[in-house]
Structure formats: C-alpha cells, structure tokens
C-alpha cells in the first residue's frame, strides 16, 4: 500500500509538468499582446518593445518556460502584469473563497442529492421516482449561469432573503455562498440523486437486506443503517472528484455572483492576458485535481478491501 502511494506521488510529477507546459504553450499562442493590453494605445511601439523585453516576452518559448519552471520550483509564481502583486499572494488571498464555495456547493449537492436519490429508490416507479428522473435530467442540462441569474432574481430581488453578489467582506459569511453554492452544485446534486438511486436500488435487492427485513427491523433502520452504508461507497468515492471539478468550475459562478475567488481572478486574467496569473491559477487547479484524484484512489482501498493495487 505504501509503495503504491509513493509510486502514485512520483507519477504526479510528469502530470504537473505536462500541465504547466501545456498551459504555458497555450497562453503563448492565444492571440493578443499582453503589453498592448497593459499599456494601451497611447504608448509608442518602441516603448512597448522595451516593456516586452523587460518582461522577457521576447525570449524563445523554451527559454521562457524553463525560466518560469525554475522560478516556480523556488516558490516564485511571478507578478501579475496588471495588479503588480505576487501571484502566490493573490492565490493565497483568493483560494479560501473558492474553497468555501466548493464546500458549500458540495454540501448542498450531497445532502439534497442523497435525500432525493434515497426517496426515489425506496419509492421506485412512484411519483417521486418519476420526478427524480425528470429532476436529474433538468439538473444536468441547465446552464449554470442561467440558473445563477434565476436564483438572483427569485431569492435576491423578489423575496430579498439572500444576498445577490459578493462575499460579505472578510471572513466567511454563509448567506453569501448559498445562491452561488446552489447554482454551482445543482448539476452535482442531480448526479448524486441519480447515482444514489441506482446504487440504493442495487443494494436494496441484496440478500442481507431481505434478511434484515425478515428479522422485523423497521424500514428506516433497513434503508438508512444497512442499505445506505453500502450504497454510499460509489457515491463517496465520486464525491472527491466532484469536489475537484467544483473547484475548477467556479469561473462562471464566481463571475456572475462577483465572488472574489480564483475563478473570478482567472476570468479577469484571461481577458487581460495576465499570463503569470493564468499560469498560477491553472497550475493550482491542476494540483488540486491530481491530489484529490490520488486521495480518491487511496480511499478506494480503504473503503473497499476487495480492491488491491500492485
């Protein structure tokens, strides 16, 4: 097991390197001159050229990439072209917002997803079951930004019970994360509902459930104690990867809800060709993804002892 974990950690290195190189390469070939965006139209082409040299943008791609990599290995992600701040500091400032948003979205998605899934499995082919199927379909097809706007209108403008945008300043203010969390987690909620339903249906048909029922245990005990325990294995392993996806999927939601997280920062950085910020955020998101992937793989082994890795 320990050898497996160590091997997986070493496997992360080429993955991270590959992602960093790909991002760097993509940003280099995206049309648009960051210097022109930085300095505007009033500046002379000669000055633009000297700024380009100062930022090292005139160097060949490989040289620039190796310089960047060397600096990153020394903990230096560079400075934002626009805000002139250290990218690492900007990341540290923004990560808590995105993390909180992903946690709230996950919590909403898992709680409601499980509840709906269990209800529909227990009452198979009932009204609730049909409703769940319909809900899953809608949840997976609704554009996130549209849902966000509708939630703002209903809960922020018409009923005025939740804030429409922002994070409420310093610290964590739950009420500011509910609408964006719901919009972000809605598709996951539908997916959890579907997954729980099929998983529960499979488990509820097992012999040990029949035995539990035959012993005269109440329906609640059978479903929630014996059934759910096993039905949750595929759901829980999925939750990790879903959390990573939610972290990466915050760009639109943070933009719509003006939540100052890394998604919002990435959106602004891309539109302003702020290369160091784009690279920093992408690298961070890639790291989150691969680390969670690793943790999920490891958790498989703990949750299901039949799974073994060589």
């Amino acid at each position: 097991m320990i050898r497996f974990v160590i091997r997986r950690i070493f496997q992360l290195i080429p993955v991270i390197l590959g992602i960093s190189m790909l991002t760097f390469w993509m940003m280099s070939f995206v049309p648009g001159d960051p210097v022109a965006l930085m300095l505007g139209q009033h500046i002379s082409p000669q000055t633009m050229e000297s700024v380009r040299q100062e930022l090292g943008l005139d160097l060949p791609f490989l040289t620039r990439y190796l310089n960047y990599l060397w600096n990153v290995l020394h903990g230096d992600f560079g400075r934002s072209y626009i805000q002139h701040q250290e990218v690492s500091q900007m990341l540290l400032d923004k990560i808590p917002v995105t993390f909180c948003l992903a946690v709230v979205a996950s919590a909403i998605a898992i709680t409601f997803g499980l509840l709906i899934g269990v209800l529909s499995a227990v009452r198979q082919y009932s009204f609730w079951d049909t409703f769940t199927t319909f809900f899953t379909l809608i949840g997976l097809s609704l554009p996130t930004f549209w849902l966000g706007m509708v939630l703002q209108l209903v809960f922020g403008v018409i009923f005025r019970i939740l804030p429409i945008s922002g994070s409420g300043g310093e610290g964590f203010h739950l009420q500011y994360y509910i609408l964006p969390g719901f919009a972000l987690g809605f598709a996951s909620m539908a997916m959890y509902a579907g997954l729980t339903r099929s998983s529960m249906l499979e488990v509820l048909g097992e012999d040990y459930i029949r035995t539990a029922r035959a012993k005269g245990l109440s329906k609640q005990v059978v479903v929630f104690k014996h059934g759910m325990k096993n039905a949750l294995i595929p759901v829980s392993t999925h939750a990790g990867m879903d959390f990573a996806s939610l972290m990466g999927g915050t760009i639109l939601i943070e933009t719509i809800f003006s939540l100052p997280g890394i998604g919002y920062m990435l959106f602004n950085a891309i539109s302003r060709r702020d290369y160091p910020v784009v690279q920093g955020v992408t690298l961070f998101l890639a790291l989150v993804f691969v680390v969670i992937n690793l943790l999920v793989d490891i958790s498989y082994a703990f949750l299901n002892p039949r799974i073994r890795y060589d």
Partner: protein
Amino acid sequence: MLKGKGRWYLVIAVLLAVALILSGCGPNAALTNGDKPNGATPVDGGTFRFGMISSPSALEPAFLEEINGIQIGKELYDGLVKYDPSSLEVMPGIAEKWDYSADKKVIKFHIRDDVKFHDGTAVKAQDVLDVWNRLAAKDTLSPVAFPLEPIVGFAEVNSGEAKTISGLKKIDDFTIEVTLRDKNAAFLTSLGHPAVSIYKIESALKAGKDFGRPVATPETLIGTGAFKFVKWNSDQDVTIEKFDDYYGTKAHVDRVVYKIFNDESTALNEFRAGNLDYVDMLPPGQRKSIIKEFPDQAINQTTLTTQFIGFNLNKAPFKDNVNLRKAIAYALDPQSIIDTVLEGDSTMSNGPLPSTMPGYDKDLKAPKFDPAKAKEYLALAGYPDGKGLAPIQYAYNFNQENQKIAEAFQGQLKEIGIQIELRNMEWGSYVKAMQSGENQMFRVNWVADYPDPANFLNILYSKSQWGMNNVIFYSDPVVESLLTQGLEETDTTQRMDIYKRIQELVVEDQPAVWTFNPNYLRLFGKKVHDLTISALDHKDMRTVWLSK
C-alpha cells in the same frame, strides 16, 4: 398531501413558474419613481453605492487610463486645474490662477496655500515637480504622460536621458513655471486629465510597485482630492471617504463604495434589490425594457466619443482612391443600425468630432446614405457594380455588439456590390494590427481624454501620430499646417474656426466614415440627487447627495 392528479398539477405549476422566470419577468412595478431629484436642498451624510462594471486596473495617477480608474482617481487626486462637471470648462484646482508670458510659451501657476494632502501636510510647488518628473520618467512607463509632452525637456526624461524636466521650474513654495516648446492652446485643458494630478510622492515611492494597486493602504495612497482612500478589496469594492480638510467645496456624502461587478445583469439585479444607488453599465440589448422598468430613474448621456470606420490610406484598395471611400460612405446607413442593433443608444455622427466637443461643426457636409450616389462613386473608383474589386477585410475588436454592427455593414455594402470579409480580433491583436497598418478597413472608437478638439484632430489626423493613434495613416500638408496653427492659436474663436476648416478638409478626403456618437444609459436610485455626469463620462461624487 397531494395525490394522483394533484401531484401533477403541482409539477405543472412549478414548471409554469420556472417558465415565467425564464421569460425574463422582473419586478417592474416595485421600483418606479416619477420624481425628478434635482433642485432640492442638499443633505449631508450617507454612503453612495456605485455599481461599477469591471475592476479598475490601477489607482496610481500615472496609470489612470481606463474609465473606472479615472472615475475613482479624480475623486482621490486633484490637479492644477479641473473641469466644471457640467460645462467642462477649465477651472482652478490646486492652482488658483495662472499667467502666460507674452509669447504664450511660459505659464506661471500660482498654487493655493491651503491645499493639503490627505495626511494633513501642505502641498507645495516641489510636490508638483516631483510628481510630474516621475510621470514623465522612462521607468514609470506611463501610458498617459501625454499632457506633459509639450513641456521643454519632457522627451529627454521620457527617453531616460534626463531625470528632471528642464521646462519645469520652482519659483517659490507656491509658484511653478512651465516652459512649453511651442505655443499650445490645448495644454491647459489637458492638465485636467487625472494622470497629472498630485499625490504624496514620498509615500508612493515607499509603496513602490504596490502604489495604487489593490494592496494599497490609506498610509501609502495619499492624494489631494475631495475624497481619501480607505480600502480596495480586490475584485470586490473600493471605498473612499470624504476628506474634511479639502480646500474646495466639500462632498455631501460621507463615503462612496464602488462595488465591482463583472456581469452587468448582476449589477442590475443588485439595483433592483435596492442595494445600489447607481449603475454605470447595463446589460446589452435590454435598453428598452430597462427604461420601461425604471422610467424616471434612467439617464442617457452623450459622451465625447466617436466611432468610425477607418480606411488604411497606405494600402490598396483605399490608397489614392477617394471615390471608393466615398462610395462606401454613401452606401452605409448608420441610422438603421442605431434604430435596430443599438436600440437608439447612439446618435449619428457627421464628422471627426462628437457633437458635444467644442469646435464641432453641425453644418459639415459628410456623405449621407444614398445608394444611387454610392454606385456612381463606385463606378468612378473603377469598380462599376463592384466588378474587379477583391473582397475587403473589415476588422473590429470582438464583442457581440461590434459583431452585429459589422454584419449589418457587410449587408449594406453587398447591396452595391462590395464584398466584405469580417475579421473579429482580440483587443491586443486588433490594436497591434491597426498600428502596423495590417488592416484594410477597421472599426475605431475614440474616447476623449480631455475636452479639446486637439484631442481628436491633432491625434487622429496628424502625420506625427502615424502608427500610434493615426491608424488610418492620414496625411495632408494643408491639414498638418492647420493642426499646428490650431494648437498655437490662443484666441478661442479663431482657433475653433481653424478646427472647423480642418474638419471640412478631412471630410472632403473621406479617410473614414464617421458613424456613431455612442450614448450610455445609466440608472440612479430614487434617493440620489444632483448626480452630474460630464461628457467625459465622469460621475461627480462631490455634488451628489442622498435624501433620507
């Protein structure tokens, strides 16, 4: 509990509710207000909540280039002069008066002795010199140092050959002398640009690269304006606070919070919910419904902005072919685009200057939509019915509105046989392509930096600006000489006559088709009074007040 059909009715009811929301039903009736706020007695106090779309890039005067930075910057810093928010006339700022030498090349500015920085220390002549030298310095890389360009010695500092501008001299603690290379009638007006406004240099130097950036603190960002800096929460908001020791008329509101949004619809929803007092930019394509929703809270402002289609005069097919340029001018119908695509949110342009700019000539005879004349000129250009004319590329920076306008132009030109290939470009590439003369025909949007015709004519049509701002590569010896005369003439009437003559000559040459002067629709809350929005698009926070 609902059973059977009842459950389905519930589902249908939920679906209908969702469909209603989908169709865009907003809370129209709740926010209507028929009162016009102007004219009442001002009340002091309160926080003005300003809905701003997109974050300012910087609050350092040397980088106040985009409108949001300028909006906040002009409240934090004052310059030697400022503009009257309504008329845009030059008024005394930090300098209470100024005198010109007989040859009009030397200006002596007398600085008020009661001007204080936000930390309470006095502003003196040396502060102005230090700030301006820093703005001009090569290392500062300011994109907006242009107001200082006419001063003797600016070029040397800007190229790194000298440290201080030789044409700037401190006479005493409250007097400075500025020597210009040539007479320049636009110089004083250009000094109203916030780039040349005054801040405490010691704290700025101490802050280094953090000066005027989101990490700024009230200890590092020390200005001279009616408001002092409080906090900039990156991507969230900027807060400024009334400065009690301000030398001029003090602001009414205690605080202004600029709430930053990236999405116009979110800002509009915050306004609907009563969380904003003003929204600066509204979602595109919703103009009519917004006016209907807030009939007495919407204001329409014509700004000093002009949009035109530029022809690259250094490149075929427009080089030396005025008839082809005129054919295109007669074939285009901007009014139909204003009525449809722009929902009436612009006015027709008749020449190089927007209608609100001093020197604007309303009698200019620019071509107006006339398909018959367009065909006539096309034949004269050597392309009867467009035969023999290769498709022309039309470039524009990409956004939905520009795309729709470009498609409409494409359709209108097709009517007379001219084929247009659309080239939508990302902003940086678009600017670069224009400056390098790569495009044949392209969209240009010029927003005034200061209210003087020189800011349009001497920049967009002078050969000295080729490859920078004169992206159509226009050059005419008579116009060039008139442009110089226009800058040097100090008699306003004669000066405006010169600029009218320049406009006539430029229109005759048809290096562009001047299409629109954009208007902007803004929303203000029911408690907002005396909000002045100048033609430079500055929203004056010194005059605004909030009723209880």
